[in-house]
């Protein structure tokens, strides 16, 4: 058993690519060995800016002899074919094996020395290496097909034990020599074997192990901070990046002028991190006027010049940042709004100013409807999904609070995007929202408004803070709802891995905000309200374009005669024709409007959006262990678009179906549903409530087989069998219980009511024949089963439940 060392030395590899490159190197190398049936005992991989290395532990000297089997002609094939096969593999007829009427040739291939396999594997994996971006270089690049690497490749160390594995690619020959640190150790060093690789490099001022470099930086930075009485602000990404930028990392502490601390700390941290890759420090939980840079040399003067240089660079950066900040502070946010009119949000959806206007109206609506607010309205959506402008039960004081809240939500929404045109956000787009919050506070907006501006993009991913302050919640929901409604409105929806407008993220954000705050929002209604200004906007634009085009056409017709004279008249006409064409291009938008109007009239638009939310909810709830089929079962009832209530129902359902009663009831339900299906009793209105709109639980509770099959409610013309009578009684008792439980959103009790059906339904199937020869009996019993199915559907569409 021998260890093999491979080092690929090149010009500086981007830090962000190094971790994946190590994984790729191991994967490709193992795959190359695999082709020859070889497997290493284990791998170690290293990356520095200037080298990528792999040690394969415990390789054998030779591969095993392998038996190859080749399929030949069928037995009884023409002799010519059989002879040809024998000749090809240099075998006699009696050496062939016969299986299933087919000849097979079996031959042993002798084991190959591992160094030979490595000789082929090294160039192959270099050629196949999947760098995210690669390049050609040097004289060989006269051809477009010349070898590619992340940056020019300069050396290959390939040592099996202490022997060089000879290979060559693009004029680079393998060997045992490499280079140490660029400045500390400019000469060549010779590696003996995998065993001394790490230590030989260390002697040449290269810490080849990235984890060791990372630890060195983490510890060194911490100590540098401590030495000055400061606490390092840890930053894992920055640690990784600095480890990828250095072979001999030396953390050094530098300072900047305290006066810069007037600039928001996030700005300072971002400037230091993004532009300079510096860590920042804190003293007493506040940002300190210090930074830690990581040099790649152990400087002769202890790093004084390096620190001085870095201090100067950061000072220049921070004075730029302060300039932006101070300049931005001179303009009030509302004065920036006209500039949003010039920023296109999406070519079909108008400008950012249009979006702001829609979001502001929606945010106000969310508050005025009592969907978002100070607590009182929690039941508004549940009561019947009504959309009365004011909750009748509100006291005057609460009414006043609500009006104030609505004003603040609208104000915050109107200012929320203004920071996009400030100098600071232009420089650091990731500060959007945050800067708006600072500027709003500075110009005297109420804290609620400033906070809403700051946080309205949240949550931007899993684990991000979810807003809870009412004004923030209103703006955050409105912004995201508008985005989703707007793109669905123009038929832009996520497909497969493509989600260019981040609608999935927006919907997950809505779900998180809604659930965290237990917001009772009728989703379909909210989407409808969000879409309405869009429709007005689009119809107005298209209509105006047609009106202008009409005037232009009239003018052109009236002046057609003058056209022949040329000159001014002709040039004006030419310009009009050009504009006319522009107006014509609105035809596309008219097509879009036609389609959207159709999707609205059929309700497809709302259903699409709700389905999208259902999908996202399933993804979002998977981690919490909620079964996706149960979410489907509740969504399938239609009409249920209040996520909080929906999830409560799903939770109760999940608890119920895992009980014995639940499992048996499900089995009974499925049996009943199958019989009904077979008998053509399909008419039960599974999705009917969907058309009733967002009616909520009450409407569902009223659903009853009676509406579908009135004859079921008629008095029976015969004496029911005991189990039949028992089921009727059980249903008579369970139905009102379940209905009232659902109306008060007590889903556990609703499930308990259903559970009472389990024994009667089992007994019914055991003793009663549904398919009775007497037609009245058959019809009545089918109706009974339908009634049972409907009762179950009060809670969920059990046919969607798996198992």
């Amino acid at each position, binding site marked *: 058993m021998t260890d093999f060392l491979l080092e690929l030395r090149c*010009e*500086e590899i*981007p*830090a*962000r690519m190094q971790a994946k490159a190590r994984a790729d190197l191991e994967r490709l190398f193992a795959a190359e060995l695999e082709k020859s049936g070889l497997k290493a005992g284990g791998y170690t991989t290293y990356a520095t*800016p200037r080298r990528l290395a792999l040690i394969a532990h415990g390789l054998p000297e030779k591969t095993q002899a392998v038996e190859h089997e080749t399929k030949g002609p069928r037995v009884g094939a023409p002799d010519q074919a059989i002879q040809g096969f024998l000749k090809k593999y240099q075998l006699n007829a009696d050496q062939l094996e016969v299986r299933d009427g087919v000849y097979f040739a079996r031959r042993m291939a002798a084991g190959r020395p591992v160094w030979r396999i490595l000789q082929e594997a090294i160039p192959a994996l270099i050629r196949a290496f999947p760098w995210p*971006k*690669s*390049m*050609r*270089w*040097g*004289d*060989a*690049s*006269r*051809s*477009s097909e010349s070898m590619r690497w*992340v*940056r*020019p490749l*300069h050396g290959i160390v390939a040592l099996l034990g202490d022997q060089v594995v000879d290979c060559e690619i693009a004029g680079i020959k393998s060997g045992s020599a490499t280079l140490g640190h*660029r*400045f500390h150790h400019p000469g060549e060093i010779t590696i003996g074997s995998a065993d001394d690789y790490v230590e030989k490099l260390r002697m040449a001022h290269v810490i080849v192990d990235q984890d060791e470099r990372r630890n060195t930086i983490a510890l060194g930075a911490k100590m540098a901070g401590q030495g000055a009485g400061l606490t390092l602000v840890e930053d894992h990404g920055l640690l990784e990046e600095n480890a990828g*930028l250095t072979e001999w990392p030396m953390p050094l502490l530098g300072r900047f002028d305290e006066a810069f601390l007037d600039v928001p700390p996030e700005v300072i941290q971002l400037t230091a991190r993004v532009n*300079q*890759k*510096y860590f920042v420090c804190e003293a007493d939980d506040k940002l300190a006027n210090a930074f830690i*840079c990581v*040099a*790649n*040399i152990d*400087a*002769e*003067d202890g790093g004084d*010049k*390096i620190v*001085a*240089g*870095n201090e*100067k*660079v*950061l000072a*220049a950066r921070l004075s730029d940042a302060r300039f932006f900040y101070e300049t931005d502070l001179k303009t009030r946010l509302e004065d920036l709004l006209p500039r949003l009119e*010039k*920023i*296109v949000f999406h070519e079909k959806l108008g400008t950012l100013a249009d979006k702001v206007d829609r979001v502001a109206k929606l945010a106000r609506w969310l508050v005025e409807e009592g969907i978002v607010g100070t607590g009182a309205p929690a039941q508004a959506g549940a009561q019947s999904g009504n959309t009365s402008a004011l909750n009748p039960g509100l006291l005057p004081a609460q009414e006043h609070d609500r009006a104030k809240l609505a004003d603040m939500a609208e104000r915050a929404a109107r200012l929320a995007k203004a920071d996009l045109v400030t100098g600071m956000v232009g420089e650091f787009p990731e500060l959007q929202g945050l800067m708006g919050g600072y500027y709003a506070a500075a110009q005297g907006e109420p804290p609620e408004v400033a906070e809403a501006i700051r946080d309205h993009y949240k949550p931007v991913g899993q684990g991000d803070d979810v807003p809870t302050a009412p004004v923030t919640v209103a703006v955050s929901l409105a912004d995201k709802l508008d985005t989703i409604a707007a793109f669905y409105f123009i038929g832009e929806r996520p497909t497969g891995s493509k989600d260019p407008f981040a609608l999935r993220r927006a919907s997950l954000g809505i779900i998180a905000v809604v659930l965290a705050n237990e917001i009772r929002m009728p989703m379909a209604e909210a989407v409808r309200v969000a879409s309405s200004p869009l429709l007005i906007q689009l119809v107005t634009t298209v209509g105006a374009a047609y009106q202008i085009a009409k005037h232009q056409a009239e003018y052109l017709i009236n002046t057609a005669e003058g056209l022949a004279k040329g000159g001014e008249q002709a040039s004006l006409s030419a310009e009009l024709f050009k504009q006319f064409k522009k107006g014509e291009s609105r035809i596309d938008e008219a097509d879009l409007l036609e389609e959207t109007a159709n999707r609205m009239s059929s309700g497809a638009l709302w259903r699409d959006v709700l389905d999208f939310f259902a999908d996202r909810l399933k993804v979002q709830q998977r981690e919490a262990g909620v079964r996706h089929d149960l979410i489907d079962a509740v969504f399938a009832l239609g009409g249920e678009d209040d996520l909080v209530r929906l999830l409560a129902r799903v939770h109760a359902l999940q608890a119920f179906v895992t009980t014995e009663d639940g499992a048996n009831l499900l089995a009974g339900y499925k049996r009943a549903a199958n019989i009904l299906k077979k008998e053509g009793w399909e008419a039960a209105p599974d999705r009917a409530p969907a058309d009733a709109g967002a009616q909520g639980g009450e409407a569902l509770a009223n659903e009853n087989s009676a509406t579908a099959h009135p004859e079921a409610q008629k008095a029976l013309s015969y004496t029911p069998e005991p189990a039949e009578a028992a089921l009727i009684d059980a249903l008579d008792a369970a139905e009102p219980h379940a209905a009232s439980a659902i109306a008060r959103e007590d889903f556990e009790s609703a499930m308990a009511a259903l559970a009472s059906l389990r024994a009667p339904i089992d007994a019914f199937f055991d003793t009663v024949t549904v398919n009775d020869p007497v037609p009245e009996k058959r019809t009545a019993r089918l109706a009974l089963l339908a009634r049972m199915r409907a009762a179950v559907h009060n809670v969920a569409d059990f046919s969607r439940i798996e198992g």
Partner: protein
Amino acid sequence: MSNAPSFQRMILTLHDYWSARGCLILQPYDMRVGAGTFHTATTLRALGPQPWNAAFVQPCRRPTDGRYGENPNRLQHYYQYQVILKPSPADLQELYLGSLAAIGIDFTKHDIRFVEDDWESPTLGAWGLGWEVWCDGMEVTQFTYFQQMGGFDCKPVAGELTYGLERLAMYIQDVDSVYDLAFNDAGMSYGDVFLENERQMSKWNFEVADTDALFDLFKKATAECENCLAAKLPIPAYEQAIEASHIFNLLQARGVISVAERQAYMGRVRDLAKGSCAAYIEKMTPEWEANYPGWSI
């Protein structure tokens, strides 16, 4: 740094250094450009199979960067030192570091780093991979291996070094304002030479330049570019394209180009520059193929 070279001494040192390494020492292109890369010695010579090694200073004009002489780091007119080596030599990094040593940077006391920074110029249909070179955290050079120019593969690849001369000099001379740089060793500062220029040019760029005339010039330059292309004269066409590019920059500084129009103008300049490169390739290809058997575009 004590005994730090003056601004002009630094340039002369770089000239000597690259001259000794086989580079032609060229003079600046005599047109207003935004970057040294626009010099035909870079763009056009990066195309085709023939070797090409050249170094030159290129004055650069970026009207929007003007600060009326009041910002110690920002200028609307400054110098780049540009080296182009084709094909890129295997020891390009070492050659480059040698040039830093020549102008007085001591690698035992300063931290030199190659930090990923890929270069792209949509205007020229060009891109390359490389780094910004940091000296103690300050970017002093853009180091690029050109991969494509004018939308065509560079065959072979050229290495391009672009030194920011003022920054480098400020660093070496340890001054905080560009205007305090020693231009020579006889007491003339960078400010003595350029401060008034910055004040007047900023004023003109931002406030005075006649925008109607500029729009007109833009139109004329683009028309002339097309005229040259029709006449199969790619070099004059290219000159008109960079003229149009600079006029566009001036219009930007005057703030008369809206966000929506901006893309359209940039697209226009890009089409012209790429068209000129394509025309140059088309014109030169027969000669290149004749002189370099086996080479093809």
